[in-house]
């Protein structure tokens, strides 16, 4: 499947889906003008990928977001839900939630994700700049 790469802008994150390597990554800040329009294709691509056969390969997801606005939060939740459902169906999904050592807000969000999404393996990872 063709890799998906969306370069970062001043208000939207870099999205890199290397489907053949089973690696997905989100990095940067997220406050696009229209979160549904930005994340729509990303979620659709992920859905296509998850519908394909070959669910025995572990999926590695790396999220390193320093800020996301309210509408992005909603879209991210939909994305994580999709991943969690895949994990519930038997695929191994590992999500690394990166946060700056001093950033309690992002860390706490990661902790809430661990409570909300029990099927995938979520790990909190610290960036100590």
């Amino acid at each position, binding site marked *: 499947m063709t890799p998906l790469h969306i370069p970062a802008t001043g208000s939207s994150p870099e999205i890199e889906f290397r489907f053949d390597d089973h690696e997905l990554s989100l990095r940067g800040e997220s406050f696009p003008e229209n979160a549904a329009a930005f994340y729509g294709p990303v979620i659709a691509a992920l859905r296509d990928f998850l519908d394909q056969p070959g669910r025995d390969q572990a999926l590695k997801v790396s999220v390193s977001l320093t800020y996301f606005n*309210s509408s992005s939060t909603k879209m991210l939740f939909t994305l994580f839900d999709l991943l969690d459902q895949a994990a519930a169906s038997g695929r191994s999904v590992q999500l690394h939630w990166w946060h700056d050592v001093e950033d309690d807000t992002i860390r706490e969000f990661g902790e809430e994700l661990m409570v909300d999404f029990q099927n995938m393996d979520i790990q909190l990872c610290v960036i100590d700049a």
Partner: protein
Amino acid sequence: MDSRYGYDQYREFCELARKKNVIFYYVGYFSQNIVTAMAEAVKLRLEQSGTAGPVRRRLFSSFVEMAQNIIHYSADSLTPPEQDQHELRHGSVCIGVDAEGRHFLLCANPIAIDQAEALEVRLATLRAMTMDEIKASYRESLRSEVPDDSKGAGLGFLTVARDASEPLEFEFQGTEDAGTAMFFLKTTI
């Protein structure tokens, strides 16, 4: 008095802003590009002024939410109503420090009267909620279906309220145009 606008008059304005502890003020058209640039300016200003990390984050978040609300909902729009991308709408935003040393954000924009009525109900409900109720409502909203009239999640006000140290303050004022009201919103970090 000199009728030409000279440095003295400008200095009076700058002094007034300083005395009122206004550290950022913008009135004009809001677009995604403009908000992105302002967000960068606000971030830099807060870093330079040595504001504590958690306060900076909450201020930045509230600033983006309020400024993007203007892009999406202000009744004074340069772009046609059907256009839902690259919108350009009018409003104002201000960041200041109050007598207790807390940062506050104020924003104002015109809003259609029928939208104003619905908004007033929503904000009055929000104002009466405890912090625990706000957090619970936030979590519930995150999991629910997005309403049709929303360009985002409807989570915006809950996000701002959750980061505030007291209930959000708001006011609606009539304008010369019977179909439009001015909407003011204030949050204190």
